[in-house]
């Protein structure tokens, strides 16, 4: 089974080095590691060149979704995983997900996400570990990518949530592992608390689309846990 890892980056050389080291330390080595440099002007290219097995694609600044899509187009692997440049994988991240995906015969696999504070960030609480389907924690089959399509480049953000919502709406199936598969870096400003946040970042639009997709879905369709609850 060929496994590809796609890492979008933009001016994040220091963190890119750490991300690549965490990929190199995987107990199952990926077949392809593709860094998509989205117009960096820092030392990102030098960082990648120190890792001869890593492919580098350079493009002008188009955003995270477009960078991931560029990487998807470049790979012919059977399964694809995504790592954001500021995040890290524990050494068994790929192996446990690949094993679970195979065993379940599922279309995608995800696991537990653990947050850690960037050394440069002010101290703040991190969320407790929890299973979540963010781009860095999911591993999906090529067939699933073909059916769901790429990340929506028109969204100002929230494109990972949108992609997962479309995966669900397509009727594809997840399997989950209880291991930590992603260590997610918390920056001082990860979540802006301003009232426009969800509009600015596309999350409200993603919610609207998801509601519309549920309306269009034929009744009785096997949506995973629609979680529509009665009110009383």
């Amino acid at each position: 089974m060929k496994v590809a890892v796609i890492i979008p980056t933009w001016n994040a050389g220091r963190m890119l080095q750490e991300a690549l080291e965490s990929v190199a330390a995987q107990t199952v080595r990926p077949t392809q590691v593709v860094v998509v440099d989205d117009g960096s002007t820092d030392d990102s290219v030098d960082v990648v060149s120190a890792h001869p097995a890593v492919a580098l694609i350079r493009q002008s600044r188009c955003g995270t979704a477009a960078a991931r899509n560029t990487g998807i187009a470049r790979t012919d692997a059977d399964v694809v995983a995504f790592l954001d440049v500021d995040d890290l994988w524990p050494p068994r991240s790929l192996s446990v997900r690949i094993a679970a995906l195979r065993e379940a015969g599922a279309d995608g696999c995800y696991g537990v996400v653990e947050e850690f504070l960037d050394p440069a960030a002010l101290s703040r609480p991190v969320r407790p570990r929890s299973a979540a389907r963010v781009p860095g924690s999911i591993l999906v089959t090529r067939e699933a990518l073909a059916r769901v399509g790429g990340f929506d480049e028109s969204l100002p953000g929230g494109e990972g949530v949108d992609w997962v919502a479309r995966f669900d709406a397509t009727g594809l199936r997840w399997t989950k592992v209880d291991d930590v598969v992603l260590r997610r870096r918390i920056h001082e400003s990860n979540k802006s608390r301003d009232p426009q946040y969800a509009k600015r970042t596309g999350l409200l639009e993603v919610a609207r689309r998801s509601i519309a997709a549920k309306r269009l879905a034929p009744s009785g369709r096997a949506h995973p846990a629609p979680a529509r609850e009665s009110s009383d």
Partner: protein
Amino acid sequence: MGSFVVPSLEIVSEVIDGEAVILDLRSGRYYTAEGVAAQVWQGATAGMQRRQIVESCRAHFPDQPSVDSDIDAFLELLVTAGLLLPEQESAGRDNPVLDWPARYSPPALQWFDDLADMMAMDPVHDAGPAGWPWSAPPPSNPPAS
């Protein structure tokens, strides 16, 4: 009940084409309210008094006997869901003209938790305009505040 406030900046909503979509980033849960319900949400979040909302609705649907109790039940539901907080005295905010639908249906709220794992997890990395983590090209104009 007098008027209401939205109790957290992490509750965001938009009313488009007669549908209110409400997202609670604290839980990752998102809601939809259509028709009469969307207008009640619009009015309540703009600071209208419960009485003003009911009167506006009654004026549009004079033959509907259940307007009062329907709207009360719906506002109660929004409070129970943590989306609204009653306040005794209205701060006298906006007083929007509510755009009631042509046909009356009792206000209802649907909610979904299927994307909560991501919605509540801050899926967007937005540390700054000079490099990632940042999810999109920086806007040419700063967002309106």
